[in-house]
């Protein structure tokens, strides 16, 4: 199981934990039966530094998404923060300094810890397991891990007049309605913390199909809260951008991780209001996200610049950059469909860095992030359509997080 605080976030975690002010909370021994006369626990002094500095692109270090994921740090530069008011006791809800049962000092492994709130809705409105807003029949934008409410078999579009000059037929009013009764997912980001998957396209040209990784909720989301949309980590754990330093031998100094720079982090700016649901799964963008937040910086190893489309809103502008920190060779600009990348597998690629509002494609134009219930039943025997060359791991019926049955996503835009 991969630790939840890898990469830049890990470095920041180390920074916060060891190089700035620390917070240690200890308990004595195992607990089977307690009584009021137990030995007194010792609390070590700790302060909280403001070590979480990200390239915010104009967005201050505000805290995202409410609830227990908001840290108590209000703003950089605040002085005299009273520790007792800065959420000191919150740490003990999830962490143990000396008796942790999961990596990175978590009391418990993910995702069960996260499901305590994010399934069934006893502690959150977002039921990510069932793909609905708790207490309603409203569908979550990212789908769900066990079930999703994507009307993948009910997608429709209107077709406009043919342009005889360009030969194109306009497509309009694409709709993928939400379901009121979720259906079982046919693909998902596997976040159980134990099942290894493949980060397809991860790595430089010629590096194979992708890196093997084990994902958890904390791979993509920062449960401590940050200024990003959906508290996404600026650099997802296990992305290609960070090489975890090996534990040094006694008497040696640790190797510096290969790339850990704020310049490679991706800002996906936070929304001005939180809207988690959608009635139309074709409208992937979030109009609550501020526009024109500027360039993200950094360059993908494949040599393709990160998405900087200024015409898009901030979320659309940067989400492809964010997704392709893991799925590196999927980041493709205009003309990639006819220009060889130099990679044997990912040779010609559909554009993925555009502002879909202008009619071009972005990662989330076609895919959802958590899980999809789209059906994939039309797979001719022996035809590896949808499977990467040499990939035999994808199970039959895997929908690859697509939004429409049987690769109908293509037809949402293209007239065939």
């Amino acid at each position, binding site marked *: 199981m991969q630790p939840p605080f890898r990469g830049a976030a890990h470095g920041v975690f180390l920074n916060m934990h060891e190089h700035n002010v620390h917070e240690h909370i200890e*308990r004595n021994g195992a607990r*089977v039966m*307690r009584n009021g006369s137990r030995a007194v626990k010792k609390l070590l002094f700790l302060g909280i530094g403001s070590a979480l500095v990200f390239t915010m692109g104009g967005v201050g270090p505000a805290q995202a998404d409410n609830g227990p994921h908001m840290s108590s740090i209000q703003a950089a530069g605040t002085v005299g923060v009273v520790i007792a008011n800065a959420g000191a006791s919150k740490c003990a809800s999830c962490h143990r300094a000396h008796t942790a*049962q999961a990596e990175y000092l978590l009391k418990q492994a993910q995702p069960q810890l996260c499901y305590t709130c994010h399934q069934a809705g*006893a502690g959150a*409105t977002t039921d990510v397991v069932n793909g609905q*807003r708790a207490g309603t029949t409203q569908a979550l934008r990212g789908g769900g891990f066990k079930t999703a409410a994507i009307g993948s078999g009910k997608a429709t579009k209107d077709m406009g007049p043919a342009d005889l000059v360009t030969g194109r037929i306009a497509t309009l009013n694409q709709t993928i309605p939400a379901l009121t009764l979720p259906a079982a997912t046919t693909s998902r980001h596997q976040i159980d913390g134990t099942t290894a998957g493949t980060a397809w396209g991860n790595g430089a040209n010629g590096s194979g199909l992708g890196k093997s990784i084990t994902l958890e909720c904390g791979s993509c989301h920062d449960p401590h809260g940050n200024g990003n949309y959906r508290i996404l980590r600026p650099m997802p754990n296990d992305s290609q951008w960070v090489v975890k330093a090996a534990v040094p031998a006694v008497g040696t100094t640790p190797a510096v991780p290969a790339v850990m720079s704020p310049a490679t982090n991706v800002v996906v700016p936070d929304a001005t209001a*939180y809207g988690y649901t959608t009635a139309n799964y074709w409208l992937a963008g979030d109009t609550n996200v501020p526009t024109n937040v500027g360039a993200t910086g950094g360059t993908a190893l494949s040599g393709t610049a990160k998405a900087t489309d200024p015409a898009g809103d901030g979320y659309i502008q940067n989400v492809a950059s964010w997704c392709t920190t893991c799925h590196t060779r999927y980041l493709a600009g205009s003309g990639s469909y006819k220009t060889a990348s130099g990679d044997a597998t990912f040779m010609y690629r559909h554009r993925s860095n555009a502002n879909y509002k202008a009619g071009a494609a972005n990662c989330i134009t076609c895919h959802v992030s958590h899980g999809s219930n789209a059906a994939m039943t039309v797979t001719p025997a022996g035809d590896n359509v949808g499977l990467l060359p040499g990939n035999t791991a994808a199970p039959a019926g895997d929908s690859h997080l697509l939004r429409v049955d049987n690769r109908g996503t293509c037809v949402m835009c293209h007239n065939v």
Partner: protein
Amino acid sequence: MNKSDTTPPAAPEATVSFDHSESDAAGEATPATMKNRKRKIATLVALLVILALLFAWYLVNRKPLSELPGLSEARLPHYELSIYGTTKPLGVAANATGDRIYVTESDGERVVRVYDRAGKQTGTLKPPSSTGKNHLPMYVAINPTTQEVYVSDRSTSAIYIYEAKGTYLRTFAPKGDLGGEWAPLGLAFGPDGALYVTDVRGTTSKNHRVVAFGPDGTLLSSMGAPGQLSFPNGIVVDSNNNIEVSDSNNGRMVIFSQLGKMLSTISRGIGEGDLGLPRGAAVDDAGRLFVADTTDHMVRVYSIDKGKAMPTYIGSFGNEGQLDGTFEYPNGVATDKRAHVYVTDRENNRVQVWGY
């Protein structure tokens, strides 16, 4: 010795001494003896009466002698058994005798399962199809005046009411203006049948509250100022008639008066009796409060002292694990009148029964 003398020698006289103190010359018992005997008989009768009373008390209550009224309640229960056959159970309720145990499950079939005291499933509670196809039962409570079973449903934002053996009766229809939508979660009854519901309405927690209804469903009051509560879950009415609420995402128990005034809190923290993520709550008739601390994987026990709003911490039971007597994310807790405590052990897919 003269051979002609054949008379055997007289046997020596046996010496018998008589205690003449208990009887007079005529053999009758003396007054002192009578008094002594009466005392002994009275003592014996008193002992028999006490034994009979204890036996009668046991027959009625089926509780161990350690639960006798007047004895200290500041003790922790011991593990007895586990009930399996449920998937991700959350809420639990038991009738007074413990021979009907209702368990809500949040995965699998998502029904309410009914078990007997041996852990054998005897039925299920399911709302009719007219109420929709997607259900998620969360918490369950038994009306003490009617024995009807109330179940909150997170998917449909409703409370379904069943008769004790499982027949669906109706959907709870509040009388009064709830101020828009509501999302009922935790349930509790007062001794008079008043219903208290934790309401987690809205996309944020700023409008979370506790709503009180009369026995006929009339809205009486609302507790919790805007932003005060964050995902309140378990709720109980204690022996002081105060309302104790698991203010779950704030990591504390909040104690309200009947008028909705916040009296005290059991706070989040790492000290003795502090909480991490409290969820279900229950009280027993010995004046104990039980709170399932989900992320600490144990149940906290407090005593509710007469006239005092702040409960006194007794101790905790359980620990993280899969073995008997350990928990993986305990959520709901309930008691019966026979000194049993029931705890839903979510990730271990079972209900644990503890007792005194």
